[in-house]
């Protein structure tokens, strides 16, 4: 194993491959920052161009784009409240509040360093445990996924806020669930809540909803309260993280990594669930959970680490099974195929130099990304010094651009405006925003897995208890529910995302 990795470094550290890696991470950071242009589209655009290139070099560049986009994606979330992709939705909740409080530098730094820590540790885990992780991931059937979703629901209900806002929190959650059930039902092919509009058949994209709720809803809310109530401080205190912020960040980084990597490795994984769970866990463990939603650094450090770790986790099923679990992984798979390579159990045997070269280049790419991103922090923070009317004008233009370029559908523009108005109304009635996202992300997945599990078992509900892994997850959910009650920590008064 170590020999393989050594071989990989020999490949990755060749000057030519270092150059390709650098090109990849730079490009990746750029597309991560640009709204609506994700790594999937970038790699797809470059695919035909790189035909005829050495496969190792091309794949090193593509992997760099993937990792780079994960770094860059948090920037718009933090500065402009506009998440560019689903992985950074959670980051926007507290990250932008930090920016408004003059701690944008710290938020960007904790995101970058956390991404580095998580990316490096997760890559290490990828090189050491990939074959073992696959066995675990395959043991996950629909019953286990459903149990995991239940666990996630139990954990994130804390985000619903204290007793005062609990009822409003449920309204938000149910709104999210209702929005999530729009579109073609994945199991039966039946259209639900589409009212005959073809645009709605594919459902509602969480990224569009997040842009509408966060960026547009917030701007409308600011405008309605008049200019005197808005306090954005470009910079308070040091540009970099203070000693206290370091102290509050390192544990969330590690916990985020521990959550993100295994969940990213699950065949039905993705970055939404781990980032959300990291947020919930950090809130549970925080000394001052009331700060969550108002700019808690843990709420940026944890989810950002989870996001990057899950990106590495995604490579486990891709390299060992040939199984893409995200849009970007699907394009990477297409890239492998273009070079006549078949990812899967035999790839490690047939192409060790390539596989380990790509893995080793991830370590190198992570280091490059840290060096590339930290100096940018100072530059980004200057953006917040732009006169306020122009800053908000810019935010709305970027938000509508982001909403449009995700699918390049004008319907998304209408949707994002409507959701923005909804976000304003929710703020007006003092309902929390985060539960809408939770319902929208977790709801459809939980329903699908529940129905799929019951379909496989032919309607027998006992599968959730007779399958050991599923039973263990459900037991953990029950334990956390009870433990949370027993702990009796006073819940925060209100969450104001």
């Amino acid at each position, binding site marked *: 194993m170590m020999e393989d990795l050594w071989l990989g470094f020999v490949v990755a550290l060749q000057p030519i491959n270092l150059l390709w890696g650098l*090109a990849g991470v730079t490009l990746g950071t750029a597309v991560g920052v640009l709204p609506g242009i994700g790594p999937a589209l970038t790699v797809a655009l470059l695919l*035909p*161009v790189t035909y*005829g290139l050495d496969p190792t070099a091309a794949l090193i560049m593509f992997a760099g784009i993937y990792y780079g986009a994960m770094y860059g994606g948090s920037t718009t979330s933090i500065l402009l409240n506009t998440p560019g992709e689903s992985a950074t939705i959670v980051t926007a909740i507290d990250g932008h509040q930090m920016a408004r409080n003059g701690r944008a530098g710290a938020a960007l730094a904790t995101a970058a360093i956390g991404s580095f820590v998580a990316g490096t540790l997760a890559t290490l885990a990828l090189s050491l445990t990939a074959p073992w992780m696959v066995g675990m991931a395959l043991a996950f*059937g629909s019953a286990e996924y459903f149990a995991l979703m239940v666990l996630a629901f139990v954990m994130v209900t804390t985000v619903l806020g204290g007793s005062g806002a609990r009822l409003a929190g449920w309204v938000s959650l149910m709104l999210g669930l209702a929005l999530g059930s729009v579109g073609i039902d994945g199991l039966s092919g039946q259209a639900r809540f589409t009212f005959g509009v073809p645009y709605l*058949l594919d459902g509602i994209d969480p990224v569009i909803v997040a842009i509408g709720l966060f960026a547009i809803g917030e701007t409308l809310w600011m405008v309605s309260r008049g200019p005197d109530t808005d306090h954005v401080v470009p910079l308070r205190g040091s540009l970099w993280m203070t000693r206290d912020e370091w102290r509050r960040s390192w544990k969330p980084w590690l916990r985020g990594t521990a959550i993100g990597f295994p969940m990213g490795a699950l065949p039905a994984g993705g970055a939404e669930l781990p980032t959300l769970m990291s947020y919930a866990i950090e809130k549970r463990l925080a000394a001052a959970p009331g700060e969550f939603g108002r700019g808690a650094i843990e709420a940026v450090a944890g989810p950002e680490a989870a996001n990057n770790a899950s990106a590495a986790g995604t490579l486990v099923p891709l390299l060992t099974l040939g199984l893409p679990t995200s849009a970007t992984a699907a394009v990477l798979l297409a890239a492998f195929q273009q070079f006549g390579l078949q990812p*899967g159990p035999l790839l490690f045997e047939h192409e060790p130099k390539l596989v380990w070269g790509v893995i080793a280049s991830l370590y190198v790419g992570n280091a490059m990304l840290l060096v590339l991103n930290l100096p940018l922090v100072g530059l980004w923070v200057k953006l917040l010094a732009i006169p306020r009317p122009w800053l908000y004008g810019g935010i709305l233009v970027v938000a509508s651009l982001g909403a449009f370029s995700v699918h390049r559908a004008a319907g998304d523009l209408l949707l994002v405006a409507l959701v923005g108005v909804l976000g304003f109304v929710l703020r007006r009635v003092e309902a929390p925003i985060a539960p809408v996202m939770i319902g929208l992300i977790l709801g459809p997945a939980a329903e699908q897995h529940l129905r799929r599990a019951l379909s496989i078992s032919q309607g027998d509900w006992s599968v959730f208890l007779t399958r050991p892994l599923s039973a263990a997850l459900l037991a953990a959910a029950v334990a956390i529910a009870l433990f949370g009650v027993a702990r009796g920590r006073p819940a925060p008064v209100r969450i104001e995302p």
Partner: protein
Amino acid sequence: MRGVTFGRALALVLLAATPVRAQATLTIVAPAAPGGGWDQTARVMQRVLAEIEPATSVPVDNVPGAAGTIGLARFVQSERGNPHALLVTGLVMVSGAIINASPVSLADATPIARLAGETEVIVVPAASPHRTLADLIAAFKQDPGRVSWGGGSAGGTDDLLVRLLAEQVGLPASRVNYIAFAGGGAALAAVLGGQVTAAVSGYGEFAGQIAAGQLRPLAISAAARMAGIDAPTLREAGVSLDLANWRGIVAPPGLSDAEQDALIARITRLATSEAWRQALAQHGWEDQFLAGAGFRQFLLAEQARIEAVLRRLAATDTAATPRFALTITPTMVPDATLVVLGLVTASLVIARARRPAPASPSPGARMTVILAATLLFQPWLMLTAGFIASSTLLFAVTASSWRGIRPAPMILARDLLVGVAFATIIYVVFTSALGVALPSFSLLTSHFSLP
């Protein structure tokens, strides 16, 4: 040597990043997200065309959604009469258009050619007791519910194959316990983990695991044995059925005969080129080239066959009595959500009504309404006046409404100036450097359209 390759490739990357003003363009619309089969087909075509028609620039445009029918609808509407646009299509679009009750179907487009096909394969885990297709069919006939079939989305090729197979062995299509996954990849994980009895997908999805001996192929859906695949065809295994997940190319409606012939000739040149053959081999696609009238015939036959099985499926579906009291129907969860949403909203309203309403003066109420109206107006404005104009307006309105007062002409002029500069920079970066089209002026006839 390597340095030369790097330099050349870097130049290519840079070249791709700058606008190439070639004399001719041929847009290929891939009605799916990047990464899928249709997208791959489009991008391989793009690459091969760059080789055989260097003077033509070939942008690929992804319009994902609803089994490709959103892309099809947009293509048929906005490209009518345009001989420089092609749409990638395939079997899934035929069934998708029927299932989604799409207002347009492939019959509305001009068939150009079928290009490639991929055979489907039925697999079981290596440890499965089912050694042959006959074993599996025997178990299936004995208790259809106990045999779960994993595959891609409902109504897709994999689903159709299992339903057609059931009908061939004398079971109603609705008795199939088909477990739809997000794609062949997710079904792969389920069959490897033993979650489902068997799985069905394109051969390529399972090729790695079959080669490694982790999956046993029981039968392929091709009409004849295929080189390099050690599995009988369905016909050899005693089921008179064949199905290919074919992909092809259609042009917009309203083309003259000459324009059609020219396109067919170009695609024929592509499909018979050496580069295309190599690409087919690399992707494991079978050459199923069939152009012009032959393809039109094929499309009609395919449409009829799929419509028939889907109709029988829908008919038996409603007649089938629920076997389990606790089965969750597709409408149950959304309905329950709506009921709970109604209840909590009602109780929230009641709770708030008891509380004295907080006197909350909204100093910016008027400005909020103006801004919200501008936002709702955006989609229409962007499509008619273009990205730069609509964004400039949005920028200026936001800035003014944030100030909360009627802006002085000088301030408004400055806002507009900054807005137009900002929007122009974004526009140039996206359209020229990234090749991502944003609506420009007078794009009333563009392919961007409201739902």
